C-alpha cells in the first residue's frame, strides 16, 4: 500500500498532494440489499483515481456517495479534512465537486455555450433581477464567466459547435459538452461516470487525451468509473476495484493488475458466499 501521509510522486513525475476526500467504512443499503459493504479509500489532490469492477459491483453507488447524492447508513465521508453532513446537490456543487453522468444529462434545447455557462452558476453572485437588467456588476460578471467558458470550449476543441443546440449533436460530442460543463465549474474534485461508455476507439482516444490534459493543465483531481480496463490502466494513478459491493483491491494499476482477487473477479472464479 501507498504511504498515506504527505502524498507521493507518480511514475511520470507528477507530485500528488494530500487527501482531498476520504471514505471511511462506508456501507450503503437499499432496503435489504447491501450495495456497498464497509469500504474505505481516499482521493488525493491532483490524482486520477479510478473505481472499477464488473457489472453490479456498486461503482455507480459509490460515485453517488462521493457526490453526496446517497447518504450511507454507516461510515463517514470526510471532505478536505472535515466530516461532511448530508447535503443538497447544489450545496455539493458549491463545495467544488462537479460530475458528468453515465446517461448524458444536458439541457437539450440550449446551445453548447449556454450549457457550459450553466456550469459557471456557482461562481455567479448577482441575483436574477440584476442579471435580467444586465447592468454594471452583472454584465462584468457575465463577461468574466464567459471568458472561462470560452477557454474550456477552446480546450475541448468544440468551437465549431459553440452555438449549436445540444439536441442536434451526436453522442460523442454530447459527452464532450457534458465534460465541458463540469469543467466550467472549476471543480476541486471532478467525478466522471463512465466517460467512455458507448464510444468508438477514436472517441475514446480523444476523451483520454482530454482527461489527461485536464489533469495536467488545470491540476484537476479526477475520480472516474470505467468499464474499459485498458483505458483505466493507462489513465489512472490509483485504482479501487470493487466486486459485489466489497473492495477487493486498491493500488497502482500494476499492483491491481497482479492482484489475485481482481483477476478472479474479472475472469470469473466461483464465489463462495
Amino acid at each position: 500500500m501507498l504511504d498515506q501521509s504527505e502524498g507521493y510522486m507518480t511514475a511520470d513525475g507528477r507530485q500528488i498532494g494530500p487527501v482531498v476526500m476520504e471514505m471511511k467504512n462506508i456501507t450503503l443499503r437499499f432496503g435489504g440489499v447491501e450495495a456497498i459493504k464497509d469500504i474505505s479509500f481516499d482521493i488525493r489532490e491532483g490524482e486520477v483515481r479510478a473505481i472499477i469492477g464488473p457489472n453490479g459491483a456498486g461503482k455507480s453507488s459509490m460515485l453517488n456517495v462521493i457526490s453526496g447524492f446517497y447518504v450511507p447508513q454507516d461510515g463517514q465521508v470526510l471532505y478536505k479534512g472535515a466530516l461532511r453532513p448530508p447535503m443538497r446537490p447544489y450545496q455539493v456543487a458549491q463545495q467544488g465537486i462537479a460530475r458528468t453522468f453515465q446517461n448524458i444529462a444536458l439541457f437539450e434545447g440550449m446551445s453548447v455555450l449556454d450549457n457550459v455557462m450553466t456550469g459557471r452558476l456557482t461562481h455567479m453572485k448577482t441575483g436574477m433581477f440584476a442579471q435580467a437588467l444586465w447592468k454594471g456588476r452583472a454584465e462584468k460578471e457575465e463577461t468574466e464567466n464567459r471568458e472561462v467558458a470560452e477557454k474550456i470550449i477552446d480546450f475541448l476543441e468544440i468551437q465549431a459547435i459553440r452555438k449549436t443546440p445540444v439536441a442536434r449533436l451526436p453522442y460523442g460530442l454530447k459527452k464532450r459538452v457534458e465534460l465541458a460543463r463540469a469543467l466550467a465549474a472549476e471543480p476541486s474534485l471532478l467525478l466522471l461516470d463512465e466517460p467512455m461508455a458507448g464510444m468508438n476507439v477514436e472517441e475514446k482516444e480523444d476523451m483520454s487525451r482530454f482527461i489527461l490534459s485536464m489533469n495536467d493543465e488545470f491540476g484537476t483531481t479526477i475520480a472516474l468509473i470505467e468499464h474499459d480496463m485498458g483505458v483505466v490502466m493507462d489513465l489512472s494513478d490509483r485504482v479501487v476495484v470493487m466486486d459485489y459491493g466489497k473492495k477487493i483491491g486498491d493500488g497502482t494499476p500494476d499492483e491491481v493488475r497482479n492482484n489475485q482477487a481482481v483477476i478472479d473477479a474479472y475472469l470469473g472464479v466461483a464465489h463462495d458466499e
Partner: protein
Amino acid sequence: MSKTLDGAGGLTSIPALLHRNVAQFGSAPAYREKEFGIWQSWTWSQTFDEIEALALGLLDLGVAEGDFIAVIGRNRPYLYWSMMAAQMVGAVPVPLYQDASADEMAYTMSHCGARFVIAGDQEQVDKVMEIQDQLTEFEAMIYLDPRGLRKYDHTNLTQYSAVQEAGRAKRSTHEPEMKARIAKQDYDSTCVMLYTSGTTGKPKGVVLSNRNVIETAKSSSMFDGLRQTDDILAYLPMAWVGDFIFSVGQALWCGFCTNCPESAETMHTDLREIGPTYYFAPPRVFENQLTNVMIRMEDASPMKKWLFDYFMGVARKVGPSILDGNPVSLIDRIKYNLGELVIYGPLKNTLGFSRVRVGYTAGEAIGPEIFDFYRSLGINLKQLYGQTEATVFITAQPDGEVRSDTVGVTCPGVELKIAENGEVFYRSPGVFVEYYKNPESTADTKDADGWVATGDAGFIEESSGHLRIIDRAKDVGQTANGQMFAPKYVENKLKFFPNILETVVFGNGKPYCTAFVNIDLTAVGNWAERNNIAYASYQELAGHPEVLATIQSHVEEVNTSVAQDRMLSDCQIHRFVVLHKQLDADDGELTRTLKVRRRIIEEKFSDIINAMYDGSDTISTTTEVTYEDGRKGAISATLDIRNATVQAVTAQMAAE
C-alpha cells in the same frame, strides 16, 4: 489609394515594408484571429513589436544569416510573424504543409537542412520529434500552443512566448545585430522558400527573392485596386505560394488586414463574421458551397423555394451583365434589386460574401454553372492563372472581362509566348530565382533569357486576347487513332456534375478512352436519403446500380459535348468504373493541393485499367488504404465496368 502605393523606392525587403506600415498605418488593424469566441486584433505597431521580440529571441537562440526556419501549423498570426521574424534576422522561412505526414516532412526538412522549426501545436511537434533523427542539421524547435507539451523534454524545445521574452530581455545585446542584418538585405536577397506540391515526383524548393514577392504584390495590388482598408481571410495552407502572396506580400504592400479563423471547422462561421472584401478559394470550395445551398433549398418550404427559383432565374439572366456594367432594361433592373433584397443579399450574407469586392479562383477549371451562379449574385468572382515559380500571377481576368473558360490577360509586367507544341511560356519580375539544390531542374524549367515553361498547354484566344489552358502539356497525348488526347479537358466537363467529385481519364496510346469516377458523397448521399436508399459506406453507395446509371447518363452527356469539339472528339469515354474508394492525398493518389497524380493512379489501379481494355464486365480488386493516423488497411471490391454510348464522329471530321 495613392497613399498606399507611394514610396516604392527603398521598399526592397519585408522588414522595410513593415517599418513603412508602422509609420503610415500604425494604429490600423494588421492581423486578427478569433480566439476564445472573440476576434483578437493587433495593429501594425503591435504586430511590429511582436515580430521584433521574436526576431531578437531568434538571435538569442543563435539563428545565423541564411539559415532555413521551417514553419508548420494552421494559419495563425503568430506563424505569419514567425516568417517575418525570420526575415528580420536574415534567415529564410520555409512554410510547410501542416497535414503532411512525418515522412513527407522528413524529405523537405532534410532537403533544406532546416536548423530551426516553429511548430503550431503538439501534433506538429510530435511529427518533427518522430523524424528528428533523420535531420542532421536540426537544432531546436519553438512551439506555439503549449497544450499537452508540459511533460516533453525541453532541451531543444522552447515556447514561442518564452523566445519573445528572452528577446525582449536581451534587446540591448541583440538589437544592433538585427539592424545590421536588416540593412544588408536588398531586392535580390531571398525572401522565402516554398515547396511545390509535387504533382510528379519529389517536391522542389522554389526560392523567391524580395524582388519576386514585392514586385508581384505591387503590380497585382494595382491590377485589382486593392486598398489599405481591405480584409482577407487566411485559411489556405501557409505553405502554398498564394497564401504567402495574399497574406504576407499583398498584405504588407497595401497594409490591409489578415484575418485568421478560430479553427479549420469554424472557417465558414468566421468567414461570415469577417465578411472579407478580397477573397480567394479553389473551385472545390465554391462547388461545395453551391452544393450545400442547393441541398438546403431542396428542404426549404415551397414558398421559399419558389422565391429562390424565380429570383435565381432573374439573376442568371441579368446578374452578370449588371456586374460587367452592360446595359440592362429598367424592368430587369427593378426585378434584380428586389431579388437582392429578398434572396441575393441574405444568401450572400449566409455565404460570407456580402462585402467581396474582388474574388478569385484558380488551380483547377471551374464549372461554368458554378462560376455563373456566384457572378449572377453580384459577387465579382474572377479567374487567375499562376504557379509557384511565377510568384502566383501569370494571367488574371480584369473586371468586366470575366468568362468561365479563359484565365484572363497577362498581369502587368508579364510576357507570354506559346511554343510549337502548345506549351505556355512566360517571363516576369516574379520569375523564381532557382530550385534549391537542384540546378538541373532549374535549367529545364527556366532558360537563359528568363523564360519559364509552365508545363501547361494552351492558346491565346484571338478575339479577346485571353489565355485558355487545355491541359498539362505532358498529359496531352495521342490515342491509338492518332487523335489528340487531353484528359483534363474531359475530366473537367465530368466534374462539373455535382454528383462527380473526381475523375481520371485514360487513353494515351490506347484504342479508346476510359475513365475512373469518384462520386461526391454529399450530393449522392443526399439524393440517396431523399429516395430512401440505404447505404452503410462510401463503397456501397458507389456501387449502387441507380448511382451507376446516373453516372452513366452524365458520362454520355459529356460524350455528346466532347463530340462537338473537332480536335478532341476522340476523347469520348467508351467505358468507365465508379471506384470503390475516394482518391486521397494520404494514399498518394492526390497531391496535398488535391490534384490528381496520374502516374501513381495508373500504377496502383493497373488491374482495373487493364480490365477496361480487355472487355471484362466486372473486376475484383484489393486496394491498400492509409488512415489519417498512418495505419494501413485494405479494402476489396468487385466493380462493374460500364459501357457508355459514344457519338459517331462524322467521316468528314475524322478526315481532317
